[in-house]
């Protein structure tokens, strides 16, 4: 009887490791950007062709940066929550980063398109999508070539960053924001950051 105890023990240790391993999500890569300053950029805004947006404009405010695109299926799943959150959150700014709206759709070949055409198509698609599904964003900035996305370590849309008053990234959500993560993680963090 005793001789079976050791293999049995090893078996349970192995089962333990596998059980933990199954619960981990390999897509959740810890971001090195958390607790680091949000990378700066200067991008055109979606609605007003004259204005640009920079994270510097948000200094002194706690805000959310949400990376989205009209071709992104999970963004659509996440969107109603953002819309209702934007109504209840009051004055918490949610900035949209329109990520590779035209280049990312896997259909349009941008190399045959002039930059002005790409910009026009981006505006047209993004505006139509927001009109259809609701606009939770204070404003949206256009990252047409995904260059800013690289600085933010974006590798799957949607992604959401919580940035504090000093412009430091405090939390990064990879994939859609859910009711649960919003209530349990993001909202408490916002409250805490707004106090400081």
């Amino acid at each position, binding site marked *: 009887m005793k001789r079976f105890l050791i293999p049995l023990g090893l078996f349970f240790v192995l089962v333990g490791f596998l059980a933990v391993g199954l619960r981990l999500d390999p897509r959740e890569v810890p971001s090195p950007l958390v607790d680091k300053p949000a990378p700066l950029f200067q991008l055109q805004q979606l609605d007003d062709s004259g204005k640009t947006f920079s994270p510097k404009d948000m200094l002194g405010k706690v805000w959310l940066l949400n990376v989205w695109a009209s071709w992104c299926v999970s963004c659509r799943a996440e969107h109603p929550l953002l819309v209702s959150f934007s109504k209840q959150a009051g004055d918490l700014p949610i900035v949209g980063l329109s990520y590779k709206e035209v280049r*990312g759709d*896997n259909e349009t070949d941008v190399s045959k398109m002039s930059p002005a055409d790409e910009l026009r198509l981006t505006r047209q698609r993004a505006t139509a999508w927001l009109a259809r599904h609701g606009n939770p964003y204070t404003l949206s900035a256009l990252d047409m070539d995904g260059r800013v*996305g690289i600085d933010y370590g974006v590798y799957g849309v949607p992604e959401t960053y919580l940035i504090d008053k000093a412009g430091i990234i405090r939390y990064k959500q990879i994939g859609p924001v859910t009711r649960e993560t919003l209530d349990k993680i993001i909202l408490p963090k916002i409250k805490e950051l707004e106090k400081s």
Partner: protein
Amino acid sequence: MKRLLILLSLALLCGLASAKEATPLAEDEAVEKRLVYISDEMRCLVCQNESLSSSHAELAQDLRREIRSLIKQGKSDQEIMDFMVSRYGDFVRYRPPIKASTYLLWFGPFLLLAGAIIALVVYLRRRGGRIEESSEDMLSAEERRKAEDLMKLNESESKQ
């Protein structure tokens, strides 16, 4: 002239095949070689079991373009690796750095090997002891006699 035409049509075909690729094709061989060398060491974050150099994911193409422009700016391999790690974390490297949180990853297999060798040595020693102990009285007098008879029988049979 004919050659040129063939070349041109081939070039066109290539253009068609990789129509999705937004980046211009290799214009500088040295840059491309370094690009492949560096991006072989990196993981594509979209399809995580592919290297950045072999992945066809959209993001991988963007990142390769980014690395290409860094190379052209004259950045060293280390600087390019740091650029990627500062954005995507150590996860982007196929060879994780040796630090406190990865000691188990790097040295765990050697620990297991050492454990296995110790267990083997202990087991062999114990077994060796047991065999020596029991070898003298493994057979009773009666059994020994029988065994000798059998051996004799066997011998005489083979002589015939």
